[in-house]
């Protein structure tokens, strides 16, 4: 089963960007990240493939500005998908190469042609 066209085109767009981009489906699975995001996360997408929520949250936990790990339901991705509204937040990522990297993430939900929600796009700005 192929993914919705909105996500297919988002992936093709992301693959051509030097801006780090991650794509999530409606279940919160990380279904793609581009090469620039791979540098921040410490692994390439070709190495990890898709990761369901618990997998990516364990692989690169996010911390808030006070250093507390952000729970699965409070993550910017979960909030954006649940609310249907964009979320912007500064976090620290414990990347898969062991390095902690601070970044501002902007997550916006993907609303399809008939306002059906298809997932979310996360743009990452190194802080």
């Amino acid at each position: 089963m192929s993914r919705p066209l909105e996500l297919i085109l988002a992936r093709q767009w992301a693959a051509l960007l030097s801006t780090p981009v991650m794509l999530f489906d409606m279940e919160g699975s990380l279904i793609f990240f581009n090469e620039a995001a791979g540098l921040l996360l410490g692994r390439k997408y070709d190495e990890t493939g898709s990761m369901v929520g618990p997998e990516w949250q364990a692989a690169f936990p996010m911390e808030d500005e006070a250093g507390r790990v952000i729970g699965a339901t409070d993550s910017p991705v979960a909030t954006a998908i649940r609310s249907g509204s964009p979320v912007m937040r500064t976090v620290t990522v414990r990347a898969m190469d062991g390095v902690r990297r601070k970044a501002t993430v902007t997550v916006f939900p993907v609303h399809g042609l008939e306002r059906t929600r298809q997932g979310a796009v996360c743009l990452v700005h190194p802080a």
Partner: protein
Amino acid sequence: MSRGWNTDGKGLSVTLFGTRGSLPAPGPDTTRFGGNTSCVMVKNSAGQALILDAGSGIRIAGNRLPKDVKRVDLLLTHLHMDHIQGLGFFAPLYTPGLDVHLWGPPSTTRTLRSRLNRYLSPPLFPVRIRELPSRVHCHDVTQGQWEIGDFKVRSSLVAHPDPTLGYRLESEGRVVTYLPDHEPQLGCRTGLPTTEWLSGHHLAEGADLLIHDAQYTEDEYLARVGWGHCTPTLAVRFAELVRARRLLFFHHDPSRSDVEVERICAEASRTHKQGMLVTEPAAEMDEIKV
């Protein structure tokens, strides 16, 4: 010409009333593959017919329907002119009381009916939809699955500018997939993506007959990336990935002569190295048994 595979009396009959893309291209150089724009009729052994797209070929298709037909279903992939320009000349629309069902994509802000009204109204056309004597029912569809008589219909958005659908029609154990305007390679730097990320894959998977865009040569495509079309060679790759049994190269460029269509499609067919895919250029008025 009528030809095909089904020998049990069952199965689908696919008639190509328009195979050309973008603009009608009548003339002495296009008599073999035809000059009419997109229109295909798929009929099952019970005689139930679905019509795909309303290019200029639909004028003839409309005249081929039985006089006592009770209901007509027309599935539109999208509303670019070459896919709707024949609509005003579709005879069933002028049959008093006949139920004509139009299926197609809305935009983010306008219904299918509203979008069609832009064409079927002055100054582009003298007759408005509401003035037609038939009973016109417009159905907004994007991705979904539903039944029309004995046909199981599945649609999904596919890679082409503006909201554009592909269709998968199933009846009597046969599958016909219609992707007349499709650029599955858009944004891919090396060939086509894996099936999970391949536009149109789930519509075309295992199709007995795949009718697919093959408008551009390789050189033309390089200058027209993002215009929403495919090359014959990439259509072959797509057909291989979805494991289609038979591929019709469709939506021939209006500048292409019969000789050129034959040549570029033959060249593309020779690139097929896996499986038993049958390939050929779509020719107007051909009737194919599936």
